[in-house]
């Protein structure tokens, strides 16, 4: 399996893992090396990222998981990026969050984060402050978490009369695959097979 430089493989894995990070045991499983070896390697890499002056990201360890993050001294530049006039539209994070709230309301922050796979409190905050979404009740159960929904302004802004005018998604927002045209034949085949078969195999 190791036709590739182990440093490169680990970098790509850390990158893909994102906020969730990678544990030593995951690394050892994917790389097919011992836990000890995985630990030595990741720590060597960690030092190397930190030392290289031409690198803007480094490896941090949080709660036993390693993840990539921008180096602290880069913060002023990132701040400048956010402030630059070119970026005056809603961020990708905010747009994603808004889409999820619009289609799945009422919805809690936790569910949104499950769908997006990343922390989402700030984008939610942005959207609330722009008046596009609002608190729309509380979830049942222990935490009584805030439920979010879109506002009247949201409809106004997008020129909709009501939520039913949102374009239908072909894909379920949970990530389950929607009905695809090519599948219709098989769907109808399945349905002709009787209801005791699970109709969807998504």
């Amino acid at each position, binding site marked *: 399996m190791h036709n590739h430089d182990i440093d490169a493989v680990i970098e790509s894995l850390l990158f893909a893992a994102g906020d969730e990070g990678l544990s030593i045991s995951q690394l050892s499983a994917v790389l097919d090396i011992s836990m000890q070896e995985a630990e030595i390697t990741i720590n060597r890499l960690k030092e190397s990222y930190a030392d290289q002056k031409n690198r803007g990201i480094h490896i941090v360890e949080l709660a036993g998981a390693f993840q990539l993050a921008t180096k602290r001294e880069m913060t002023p530049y*990132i701040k400048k990026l956010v402030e630059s006039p070119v970026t005056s539209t809603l961020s990708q994070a905010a747009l*994603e969050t808004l889409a999820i709230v619009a289609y799945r309301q009422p919805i809690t922050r936790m569910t949104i984060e499950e769908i997006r796979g990343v922390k989402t409190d700030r984008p939610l905050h942005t959207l609330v402050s722009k008046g596009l979404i609002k608190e729309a009740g509380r979830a049942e159960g222990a935490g009584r978490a805030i439920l979010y929904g879109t506002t009247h302004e949201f409809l106004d802004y*997008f020129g909709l009369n009501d939520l039913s005018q949102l374009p239908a998604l072909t894909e379920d927002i949970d990530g389950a695959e929607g009905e695809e045209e090519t599948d219709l034949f098989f769907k109808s085949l399945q349905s002709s097979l009787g209801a005791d078969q699970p109709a969807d*195999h998504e």
Partner: protein
Amino acid sequence: MEYSVKVDAFEGPLDLLLHLIQGLEIDIYDIPMAEISEQYMLYIRAMKVLELNLASEYLVMASTLLAIKSRMLLPKHEESWDHDDAPFEEEDPRDELVERLIEYRKYKHAAVELKEKEQERGSFYTKAPVDLSQFETQKQDSLEELQIDLHDLLGAFNKLMRRKKLKKPMSTKISRQEVSIDKRMEEILTDLRKLNGPKLFHEMFPITEKPHMVISFLAVLELMKRNEITIRQEHNFSDILVEAFEGVNLVAQP
């Protein structure tokens, strides 16, 4: 959910015609109308047998084909009234059809290339933007300045869907077992013989995975054709029953 079963496998009459032209190794610029019409009608019939909801476009094309065919059979007596001897470019009744086929084929091929690009793009992994809202200035842009529309929303969502998520558990990949039609036929037959009685049609499809279902379906068709099994239905909408014929025939005997 609405059930508008598409005439599957083909993207319309033009697609079907291209398929036939390619299969019959016909020169697209010189289509033998009799042959192509006959083949076309065969497919239409097959789709009807399958009770696929045949889109009206297929029938329109069928009559177009027949019309062209009959126009080509008409005796050519143009010469008789071709008064001046100007080189008179006789119009081929097939021209318009050929033009449409070629135009459609261009995009059909472009679609194939797009599919490749889709797969290529799908093979690399990108990451969600870091949440940067902590750096956002106090002065919030007003909604009017945002200049986003629903398409941006949908685009962002599509992008999100493309992003890969970390698996919670390390999953062990179930290697997909390829089943051959022969093997599936044997399974079905052994099963039915052991039972010594009818089985429900849907029981032919124990695994609801597309490839397996197709193979099972084809296996049942083939067994029917070889008279190894019989299929009956007591009345409309009742269960379809599958039963093995008594006999000693073995499937797939070398």
